[in-house]
C-alpha cells in the first residue's frame, strides 16, 4: 500500500501549516487550533509511515495515535479553560505581547 507515503507527506504539510499559524496568529483560540492541526500532522506521519511497508497494517502506530488523540483533547481542554480565564481577566484572548495585534476577531474589523 503505497498511499502511506502520501498521507505521511500530508502530515508533514499539516505540521508546517500548524507552525506557521502558531507563530503568526495572535488570537489564543487560533493558536490552540494550530497546535491541534500540528498534532494531527504528527499522527498522520506516525500511521502513514507505519503503513508504507509491505507487511500490512501495523497496529502499534494506531494505538499510539489513539493515545495521542486523548492527550490532545486533554491539552486542548486545559488550554481553552485557560484562554477563557485569561480573556475574562484581561478582556482580550491574547498573550500580553500580542494584545495590540490584529486578533482577526469579527468585532475587531
Amino acid at each position, binding site marked *: *500500500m*503505497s*498511499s*502511506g507515503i*502520501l*498521507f505521511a*507527506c*500530508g502530515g508533514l*504539510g*499539516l505540521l508546517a*501549516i*500548524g507552525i*506557521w*499559524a502558531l507563530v503568526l*496568529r495572535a*488570537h489564543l*483560540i*487560533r493558536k*490552540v*487550533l*494550530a497546535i*491541534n*492541526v500540528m498534532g*494531527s500532522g504528527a*499522527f*498522520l506521519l506516525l*500511521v*502513514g509511515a507505519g*503503513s508504507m511497508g509491505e507487511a500490512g*497494517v501495523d497496529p502499534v502506530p*494506531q494505538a499510539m*495515535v*489513539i493515545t495521542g*488523540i*486523548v492527550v*490532545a*483533547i486533554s491539552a*486542548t*481542554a486545559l488550554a*481553552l*479553560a485557560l*484562554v*477563557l480565564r485569561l*480573556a*475574562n481577566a484581561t*478582556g482580550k*484572548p491574547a498573550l500580553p505581547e500580542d494584545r495590540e495585534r490584529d486578533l*482577526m*476577531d*469579527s*468585532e475587531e*474589523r
Partner: protein
Amino acid sequence: MNTGQALDLLLVLVLLWVAWAALSSRDLFRCIVLFIAFGLVLSMAWVRLGAPDVALAEAAIGAGLAGALLLATWARLPGKTEDSKLDAKGEDDED
C-alpha cells in the same frame, strides 16, 4: 496511478486546504467550524489508511468533542453578543 491512489491524493489535498482555511479565516466562528470539518476529513483519511479504530476516535473526540469545546469557549468569550450560535451549531458532535 489507480483510482484508490487518486482518491487518496484528493483526500490529502482537501485535508491541507481545510487546515489552511481553518487557520487563516478572519471569522473565528468559521475557523472552528472548518476545524470540525478538518477532523471529519481526517477520519476519512484514517479509514483509507486501514485504521478504523483511529477513525472512530478522531470523529468522536478530535472532531466532535474538541469542536464542542471550541464552540463553547468561543461563545463564552467576553464581548460576545449572540450566544445562540453555540446551539445552532452544536450538532457537530454527534458522531
